[in-house]
């Protein structure tokens, strides 16, 4: 579903940041990508999301070679097939939880269609599965929610319309241990239910064992090794 080959990227010529011989992710698979900050993982996510393009090499997502697509097509691919959850501040602070979830459908007709006849009902259902009290948070701006609640709303937004890939970038590092475990369990359940592959980026090795596979970015990145 996602395969990376001979990917090279540098911000400045002569100072390569990423040089990945190969990295792949199967449909529905969960991959733990370990890497400390500064290891180039944010850059890698921007490359996979199609916001940046590499100097050489190839990223194939669902059969599309990103390097051959125009920016417009990459934006469309991202909107239709990838759900993102970041470390913090995932939500538009002035929208309530439901409207934040529905944002994904607003920018992708495909995901709006896959969310069913009533995307709003779908959003409520996802939030409930994420153990949110929907009636309590409805109509309240997202800025008023706790960090744990915000991350669950972000997960629901990443999952609505069943994208093939969910990319989570340190989604638990702002949470305490209990909340973190609850959140991870819910995220796994829902990715499985939606049939989405999960690319999980973190420096926290204690989470590693829950994933199908684990890769250390520093080990596979030749740019760092040399």
């Amino acid at each position: 579903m996602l395969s990376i080959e001979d990917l090279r990227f540098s911000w400045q010529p002569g100072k390569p940041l990423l040089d990945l011989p190969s990295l792949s992710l199967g449909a529905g698979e969960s991959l733990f990508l370990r890497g400390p900050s500064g290891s180039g993982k944010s850059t890698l996510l921007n490359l996979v999301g199609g916001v940046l393009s590499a100097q050489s090499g190839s990223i194939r997502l669902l059969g599309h070679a990103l390097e051959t697509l125009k920016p417009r097509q990459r934006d469309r691919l991202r909107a239709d097939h990838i759900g993102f959850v970041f470390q913090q501040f995932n939500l538009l602070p002035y929208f309530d939880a439901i409207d934040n979830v529905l944002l994904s459908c607003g920018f992708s007709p495909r995901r709006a269609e896959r969310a069913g006849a009533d995307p709003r009902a779908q959003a409520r259902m996802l939030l409930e599965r994420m153990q949110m009290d929907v009636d309590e948070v409805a109509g309240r701006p997202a800025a008023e929610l706790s960090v744990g609640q915000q991350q669950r709303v972000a997960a629901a937004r990443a999952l609505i319309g069943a994208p093939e890939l969910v990319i989570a970038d340190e989604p638990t590092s702002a949470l305490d241990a209990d909340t973190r475990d609850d959140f991870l369990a819910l995220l796994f359940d829902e990715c499985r239910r939606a049939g989405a592959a999960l690319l999980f980026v973190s420096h926290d090795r204690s989470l590693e064992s829950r994933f199908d596979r684990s890769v250390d970015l520093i080990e596979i990145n030749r740019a760092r090794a040399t």
Partner: protein
Amino acid sequence: MLLKITRASLWNRRFAVALTLFTVAISVALLLAVERLRVETRRSFASTISGTDLIVGARTGPVQLLLYSVFRIGDASNNIRYSSFQELAALPQVAWAIPISLGDSHRGYRVLGTTSTYFEHFRYADQRGLKLARGAEFAGIGEAVLGAEVAARLGYEIGDAVVIAHGIGNRDIMVHDDQPFRVVGILERTGTPVDRTLHVSLQSIEAMHADWQHGVRIPRRPTAGDGDASREVGHDVHVAPATAAAAPQTITAVFLGLKNRAAAFALQRQINEYSGEPLLAIMPAMTMAQLWSLVGVAESALLLVAWCVVVAGLLGMTTALVSTLSERRREMAILRAIGARPWQIAALLMLESALITLLGTALGVSLVQLGVLLLAPSLSGQFGLHLQPLTFTLRELGLVLAVLVGGQIAGILPALLAYRRSLADGLTIRI
């Protein structure tokens, strides 16, 4: 979706947005108010006199003749002979002729000597004639008809006595207090200089000046038993009383109405070449246009200043939007991650400026309408400016559209910045 985001985002920052909105509203209100006053001033100016085809006075500048004969501004350098007036009135092309005599005043208001033809033929605005609000026209010597403002400001009523001063100005040093006038009529408001004028008969003016030479009173030497009826005026010139007063020597100007307006050019030429004495004939409409081209500069300057205020208001909006961009980088990154294209981020900013300009303009228009509604009565009373409340002219619509376009142009810079930043930031912002 974009509109929904814009609305929620603006509402989230409603306090700052409201300030920006008021800035735009006030600048738009100012622009429309200046435009309103400009149009109305021009209309009011143009409606000072109508129906008069030619104004004739002593030879001077056309604008000067118009100023003193119609606007009561400045003084005539010379008078014209009464006999010239009689000749003009008798011309076959002339339908009517109004003699006017200026030079005296009452507490700063000009006194105009004329005949009943003035009330009959003088027209202002859209061929409107003078109407008496109270009382009657003057019939004899010592009777005065007041303009509406004179009566209102000085509190005169029918039957009050009015003392007229020689010359112009508030300081009534040389007063014709031997000849007090009685108010017999008060005119309806016209919004023209007529409101600020006291009207008396030519004979009254003549009688008043009978004892005066060169602006100085000549002591009266009583002659045998005649009393008031017989006077000796300096230099042993005898003037027959009453009847003599009925035939004035000089007047200041003449308003002419022609039977056929097309004859105006030819008659103007004929009068200007009159051999009896140096005369000047002007066509009021043409000289008014000439005068307005002088006054109009101030008017254009005012409008220019109003536009500058609008530009300042819109620049204020640009500044406000640009200053929000850094704190909204996260918002932009979230939208990018969800799949928003960079142009959609830019469109958000354009929508914001459009909404602020639209609401601000709507508020500004409402402010002007409300202001006119509240101020129209007092403006009409004090300045003769008749502003129409709850109207919207095509020209004003044009101004409003221009402001809306300007608002959109003002939104280009923040939109462009947001576009470039969202491309540079990508999905994750390093702060």
